[in-house]
C-alpha cells in the first residue's frame, strides 16, 4: 500500500467517493456489518457531543473548546484499531480516539471547564493528556516508541498533530528521531486545511504533508481523512508495519474543520462560503451514512431516533461535570513534586493563614 500510494506520486488514498460508493475495491477493508454500524454510531455520538458542546459554550457553561466537527472519521478510525495497551498521544482534536481509549466525555468536559482532574483518566490506559503546545507531543510519541522497542513490548503509539503543527521544529525532530530509531509510532496529521486562520499552503510550500516522510526515510501516505474506510485501512496497514518493527509511519489525513477553530473563533473572517460548501459534500458522516443506507444497514429514521438518546447521554455527563464541585486548594500544590518541598508547603500554609484572615474580614 505504501508503495502504491507513494506520496511522491501525489495521489490520495480513497476507498469510497462522496456518495458513499466504493471506488477502490482492492483496498476496501473487510468489516462485519455489526462492527461497521458501531463505528458509525461512535462517530455520530462524537458529532452529537461536539454540536452540543458548542451550544453549552454559547450559554457560557464552558470556556473554550476545539470542535472535531467534520473530522470525525480520522479519530474514529484510529479508535477502532488502538488497543488498550497502545499509547495515545493526542493533540487536542481527537475526541473519537480518546473516547475509544476509555476517556469519558465527563473527563473531557472537566478539562475544558478548567479542572486538571479531567486529565487524570480513570479508565483509559496509556493515554497522554491533551497537549496544548503545538507539535511538542510528537516527541513524547517517539520516546514512547523507544521505550516499547527497548522493553520488547507489542505496542503501538498513535501520535496526532495538525497541519499547522508540521511547521514546528518538534515535528521535524520527532519524525527524525523516530526514523533513526525505527520505532512503532503512527504519526497522524489531521490536515484540516487551517491552523486557526492560516491555510495549509501558507504553512509549507511542499506538495503535500505526507511527502515530508521522505525527509525522514519513513513510510508516508496521503489519505482522504473524510473517508472512514480509507482511514481504517491506512491505519490497519500502518499498525502492521509498526508491529513488524518497520515503523514509524506518517499519515496525512486530508479533512476539513467544519466548525470554528475553538468556540471563540470566527471562521467567516478567513474562509469563503464556497469553500465550506465544497467540503460539505465530502462530509465524512454523510459519506459513510450513504454507504450504510445503500447496504440497508442504517436509515434516517434510526438516526433521528438515536440522536436524542445521545444528546441525553452527553447532557448527563456534562451536568455531572458541571456539578463537579469546588477546586480543592490542596491540588494547587500537591502534584508539582513527588515530595512537596518544605518551602512550597510553607507557601500553602501562608495561603491558609491569608484565607482565614480574608474570611474573617468578609464576615
Amino acid at each position, binding site marked *: 500500500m505504501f508503495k502504491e500510494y507513494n506520496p511522491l506520486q501525489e495521489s490520495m488514498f480513497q476507498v469510497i467517493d462522496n456518495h458513499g460508493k466504493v471506488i477502490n475495491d482492492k483496498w476496501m477493508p473487510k468489516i462485519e456489518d455489526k462492527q461497521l454500524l458501531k463505528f458509525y454510531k461512535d462517530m455520530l455520538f462524537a458529532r452529537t457531543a461536539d454540536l452540543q458542546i458548542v451550544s453549552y459554550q454559547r450559554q457560557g457553561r464552558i470556556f473554550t473548546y476545539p470542535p472535531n466537527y467534520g473530522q470525525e472519521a480520522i479519530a474514529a478510525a484510529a479508535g477502532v484499531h488502538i488497543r488498550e495497551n497502545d499509547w495515545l498521544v493526542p493533540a487536542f482534536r481527537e475526541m473519537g480516539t480518546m473516547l475509544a481509549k476509555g476517556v469519558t466525555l465527563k473527563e473531557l468536559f472537566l478539562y475544558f471547564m478548567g479542572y486538571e482532574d479531567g486529565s487524570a483518566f480513570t479508565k483509559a490506559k496509556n493515554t497522554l493528556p491533551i497537549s496544548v503546545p503545538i507539535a511538542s507531543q510528537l516527541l513524547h510519541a517517539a520516546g514512547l516508541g523507544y521505550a516499547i522497542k527497548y522493553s520488547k513490548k507489542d505496542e503501538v503509539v498513535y501520535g496526532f498533530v495538525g497541519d499547522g503543527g508540521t511547521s514546528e521544529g518538534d515535528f521535524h525532530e520527532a519524525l527524525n528521531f523516530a526514523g533513526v530509531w525505527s520505532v512503532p509510532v503512527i504519526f497522524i496529521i489531521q490536515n484540516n486545511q487551517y491552523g486557526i486562520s492560516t491555510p495549509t499552503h501558507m504553512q509549507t510550500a511542499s506538495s503535500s504533508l505526507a511527502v515530508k516522510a521522505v525527509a525522514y526515510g519513513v513510510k508516508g501516505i496521503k489519505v482522504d481523512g473524510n473517508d472512514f474506510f480509507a482511514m481504517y485501512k491506512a491505519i490497519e496497514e500502518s499498525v502492521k508495519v509498526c508491529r513488524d518493527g518497520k515503523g514509524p509511519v506518517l499519515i496525512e489525513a486530508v479533512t476539513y474543520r467544519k466548525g470554528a477553530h475553538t468556540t471563540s473563533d470566527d471562521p467567516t473572517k478567513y474562509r469563503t462560503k464556497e469553500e465550506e460548501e465544497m467540503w460539505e459534500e465530502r462530509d465524512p458522516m454523510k459519506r459513510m451514512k450513504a454507504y450504510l443506507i445503500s447496504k440497508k444497514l442504517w436509515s434516517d429514521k434510526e438516526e433521528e431516533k438515536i440522536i436524542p438518546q445521545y444528546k441525553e447521554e452527553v447532557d448527563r455527563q456534562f451536568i455531572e461535570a458541571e456539578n463537579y464541585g469546588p477546586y480543592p486548594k490542596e491540588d494547587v500544590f500537591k502534584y508539582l513534586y513527588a515530595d512537596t518541598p518544605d518551602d512550597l508547603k510553607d507557601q*500553602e500554609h501562608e495561603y491558609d493563614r491569608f484565607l482565614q484572615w480574608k474570611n474573617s474580614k468578609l464576615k
Partner: protein
Amino acid sequence: MVNAINDALDIKLAEDKSVIVYGEDVGVEGGVFRVTEGLQKKHGVERVFDSPLAESGIVGTAIGMAVAGLRPVVEMQFCGFIYPAFNQIISHATRMRNRSRGKLETPIVIRMPYGGGINALEHHSESMEAIWGHIPGLKVVAPSTPHDAKGMLISAIESNDTILFMEPKRIYRAIKQEVAEGKYTIPLGKANLVTQGKDVTVVAYGAMVREVQKAIVMAKEAGISVELIDLRSIYPIDKETIVKSVKKTGRLITVTEGPRTYGVGSEISQIALEEAFLHLEAPPARVAGFDVIVPLPKGEHHFMQDPYKIFYEIERTVKY
C-alpha cells in the same frame, strides 16, 4: 489597550517602511485578540502577514530581517508559546550587537500577551518575566494602561535593542481610557510614580497595578497611605525611582503574578537592601504567585493576586 497597541503599530507602519509585522494569525484575522486587526488591509500583505506556526522560525527570521535593516515587530500568540523561540532570543537576538562589537544590531520587538485572569487553558496564563529579565541584552517591559501601551510600544519599535513587550491580556479591554491621538513616546526604563503615599511603597506592573489600586482603597480606609510605583520596565530596572520612594516610606512591597522563588520581587527587595538598608523599617515583602503551575480556570483564583492579598501584606508590613 488593544486599540492603543493597534494604533501604535499603525502609526509606525505608516511612518517607517522598515517596520514589518508578522506572527501566527496576525494578518488576515488580525490576531486572536484582534490587536493587529485591519493592519494588513491598510499596509499590505508584505508588511503585515501570517507566518507558519513556528516560534523559533518567527524570531529567528526576525533576526535576519533586523540585521538587514528592517524593524520586525513579531507576535507570540500567548506567553506559553514563546519557549520554542527561547534559543533564538537568548543565543542571538540579545547577542548580535555584543558578538559583532557593535557592527550588527537587532531592533526587534516581540509582542506577547501574558498573565492570568481570562479563564484560559494551560500555557495561556503565565507571567515568567523574571526569566526574561535575567537575560543579558534583552529589554523587558509591560504597560499597565492603554496610554502607556501606545507610548511604550512606539518607543520599543524605535529602539535599536531587542525588546520583549509583554501585554497584560487580562486588561486588554478592561481599562477604558482616552488615549491621545497621533504619535507620542514613553521612554523605556523609567518607572511611573502612580500614587504618592508615605507609609509604604508598593511596586507593581502590568495588570497588577490595577489590583494594587483596589488594595489602596482598602488601605486608605485602614488609615494607611500607599505610594504606588508602576515599574513599567522589568529590565532595566528604574532603581532611582524605587530607592527614592523606599527611603521616604521605609517600607516596600512588590506585587507580581509569577512564581515567587527567583521572581521579580526579590530583586526589587535587593535593590532596597543595597541602596536603602538603613531606611528600612520592615522587611521588604512580596505578594507573588506560588511556585506552582498556574491552575486551570477553576483553580486559578487560588493563584492570582487579589486586592485582599495585597492589602493583607500592606497591613502586615506597616504593622511590623
